[in-house]
């Protein structure tokens, strides 16, 4: 087995996603949780290109699989669905692809079913076969069925289905060679009806029985005789019974008992809280060291590049604008990778679906569906993949409500802002700093629920749609899949950092560099402030010079214009500039403050920045960063939108700039209002 990411990439970059390399296209179809992704990863050797299905944000994974020396195929992993008939975005994408609505019809379908639960998973196989395309069925988890005493009669199953059936195990690799050779035969062979190979030389191939036979009278369900769902499920149930050689029924008492605890009204929430606290602690704990490495790595890169390039604007652009701007965002990569790795493990284990059952009742009260829980959780790393993940919510009202409140969750980019404020407010008190962090997280969550409730009462009236959720079986999660998932999400994040954030960084650099301040002008300014340039150290002089240049540049002028707006919430003009520069990416505020308060362009160490901020004063000598201003700044950054890429994704997912503009507007007003209250409340007590 071999695969090539480049060839897969070049194929899928073709608009048709198909014929550029001459490979035939095989679509993979099946229920969620039948191990489709594991099979895809094994078949493509973990090399695949992820893009989106046309006009959607649903992941489209395409990989190349070499079936033998002469033939390779392009394998497309369709989203997991229970039916091709319903109307969720995933089902629509899967159906359109199978039917060739937006692209060419696939050459064959590979349907994955679960050996431990044929009854449940054969329903989609029937729908696939009804499309009349060459089809092969892979019975996954064959080894785990065997362990549980279930022997599947693959020949009977194949005969009844009228298509080749192969038993496989994505975990061990069992049956994959046979799957590939059968796929090659299927693609080379005649159209339906198919001859089913028995797999043994003594028995000749047998003609397929009609898979779509109508149910016998005693199997039909009376009132639902014409209902394809009832027909399909009863057919699947009958076929599963016939195909299981050893008729022993798998006991699921253990799963029932676990379910009882995990979804219990009292124990469920405790377990939920414990799992979440543990998951988040591990995310921050594991990410800490690699983040420090990356931070110092970028620092080293910046000084290395500074040494290479001659001093001047170009050096400043590369070092301050590009390395500083992009690097400042990329240091959050470890957190994002670990969070998505944990989420994948939790989802694979079957726990996340139980967590949805636990939180559904609370979330529904504020007009959010239980399914919004996973996107809200993912938003703690980054709102962008979280908003994309809302596609699991079918109802548009519910989905809009979720998208509108997702950016209120504390994402990784807010952490540097929290960190600097915590350091200023509670120097040398890690416990108080931790409580401050927790409060900021809590404020975001409470605000999200309050806003969702207000939306329910006003713009998005109605109840959140009611929960109907398939609870997958408990399984040992696959590390391989989780790593792959984390890698994909991380790559998306890097792609954004390399494009949108790179552009923003360059723009901000330009705005804060030009027009230039002449030496004479600087000396005049210093003289007017009665600063004796000769008596201060070189480092401090550089700091003063940087600040003066900032004030002189476009950004500084803008800051002075907007300063009166932010004065009521305790911000001086420099913080106002920070708010402005971080309009597109909130983490930029830290580097902006570090520049404006007279440090070098990038804070080498946050404590240095902290000291400088703590000692910053207004011309009349009063402190800039009082407790009230710090709290106000924190509240503002917890609640403000301040993220242009998120706005772009909101527009894409809601289909209109109107919702993106509303999101920006309400969050900015909320942030300002809450910061105003916080500033004046804290001022009254301090």
């Amino acid at each position, binding site marked *: 087995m071999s695969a090539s990411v480049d060839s897969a990439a070049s194929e899928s970059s073709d608009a048709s996603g198909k014929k550029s390399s001459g490979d035939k296209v095989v679509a993979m179809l099946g229920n969620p949780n039948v191990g489709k992704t594991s099979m895809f990863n094994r078949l493509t050797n973990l090399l695949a290109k992820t893009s989106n299905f046309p006009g959607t944000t649903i992941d489209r994974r395409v990989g190349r699989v070499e079936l033998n020396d002469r033939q390779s195929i392009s394998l497309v992993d369709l989203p997991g669905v229970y039916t091709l008939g319903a*109307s969720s975005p995933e089902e629509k994408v899967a159906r359109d692809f199978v039917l060739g609505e937006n692209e060419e019809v696939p050459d064959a379908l590979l349907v994955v079913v679960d050996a431990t639960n044929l009854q449940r998973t054969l*329903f989609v196989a029937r729908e696939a076969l009804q499309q009349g395309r060459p089809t092969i069925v892979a019975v996954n988890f064959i080894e785990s069925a065997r362990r549980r005493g279930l022997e599947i009669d693959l020949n009977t199953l194949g005969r009844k289905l009228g298509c080749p059936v192969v038993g496989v195990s994505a975990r061990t690799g069992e049956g994959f060679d046979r799957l590939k050779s059968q796929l090659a035969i299927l693609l080379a062979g005649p159209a339906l009806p198919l001859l089913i190979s028995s797999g043994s030389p003594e028995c000749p191939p047998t003609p397929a029985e009609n898979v779509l036979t109508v149910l016998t009278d005693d199997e039909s369900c009376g*009132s639902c005789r014409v209902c394809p769902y*009832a027909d399909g499920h009863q057919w699947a149930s009958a076929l599963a019974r016939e195909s299981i050689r050893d008729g022993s029924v798998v006991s699921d008492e253990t*799963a029932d008992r676990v379910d009882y605890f995990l979804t219990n009204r009292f124990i469920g929430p405790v377990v939920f809280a414990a799992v979440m606290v543990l998951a988040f602690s591990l995310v921050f704990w594991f990410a800490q060291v690699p983040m420090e490495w990356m931070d110092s790595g970028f620092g080293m890169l910046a000084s290395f590049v500074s040494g290479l390039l001659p001093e001047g604007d170009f050096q400043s652009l590369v070092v301050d604008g590009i390395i500083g701007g992009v690097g400042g965002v990329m240091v959050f990569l470890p957190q994002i990778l670990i969070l998505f790795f944990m989420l994948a493990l939790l989802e694979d284990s079957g726990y996340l679906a139980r967590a949805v059952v636990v939180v559904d009742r609370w979330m529904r009260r504020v007009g959010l569906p*239980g399914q919004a829980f996973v996107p809200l959780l993912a938003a703690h790393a980054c709102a962008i993949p979280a908003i994309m993940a809302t596609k699991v919510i079918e109802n548009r009202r519910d989905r809009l409500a979720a998208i509108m409140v997702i950016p209120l969750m504390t994402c990784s980019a807010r952490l540097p802002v929290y960190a600097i404020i915590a350091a200023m407010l509670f120097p040398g008190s890690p416990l108080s700093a931790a409580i401050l962090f927790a409060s900021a997280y809590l404020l975001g969550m409470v605000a999200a629920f309050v806003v969702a409730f207000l939306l329910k009462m006003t713009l998005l009236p109605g109840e959140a*749609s009611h929960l109907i959720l*398939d*609870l997958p079986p408990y399984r040992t999660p696959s590390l391989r899949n989780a790593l792959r998932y984390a890698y994909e999400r991380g790559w998306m994040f890097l792609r954004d950092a390399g494009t949108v954030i790179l552009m923003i960084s360059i723009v901000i650099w330009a705005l804060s560099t030009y027009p230039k301040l002449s030496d004479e002008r600087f000396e005049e300014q210093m003289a007017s402030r009665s600063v004796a340039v000769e008596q201060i150290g070189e480092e401090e002089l550089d700091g003063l010079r940087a600040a003066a240049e900032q004030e002189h540049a476009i950004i500084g002028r803008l800051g002075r214009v907007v300063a009166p707006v932010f004065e009521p919430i305790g911000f001086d003009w420099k913080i106002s500039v920070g708010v402005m520069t971080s309009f597109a990416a909130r983490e930029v505020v830290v580097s902006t403050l570090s520049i404006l308060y007279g440090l070098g362009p990038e804070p080498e160490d946050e404590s240095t920045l902290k000291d400088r901020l703590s000692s910053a004063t207004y011309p009349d000598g009063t402190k800039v960063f009082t407790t009230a201003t710090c709290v106000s700044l924190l509240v503002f950054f917890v609640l403000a939108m301040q993220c242009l890429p998120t706005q772009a994704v909101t527009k894409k997912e809601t289909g209109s700039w109107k919702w993106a503009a509303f999101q920006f507007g309400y969050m900015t007003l909320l942030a300002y209002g809450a910061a105003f209250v916080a500033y004046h409340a804290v001022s009254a007590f301090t």
Partner: protein
Amino acid sequence: MNSEITLNHFIGTSGEIARMDLPEACAIRLKSLGLFEGQKVQLSRAGNPMIVKAAGGKIAVAGDIAKGIYMRVAHS
């Protein structure tokens, strides 16, 4: 004679769905998961949401949905 009771009031471990009185989208979602008229279901967890077993799977169903699922009650 058979009578009906909604799933949210259903007491017992297993029963048969008599009919569903739900918006079409909900009904289709339930049917695709194996809950349709005539289907035998097992009650795994009462409350809201409740968990039922049918067609080889386990499905969590909100109380408001359960109100629209009528179970057949066989009188002895």
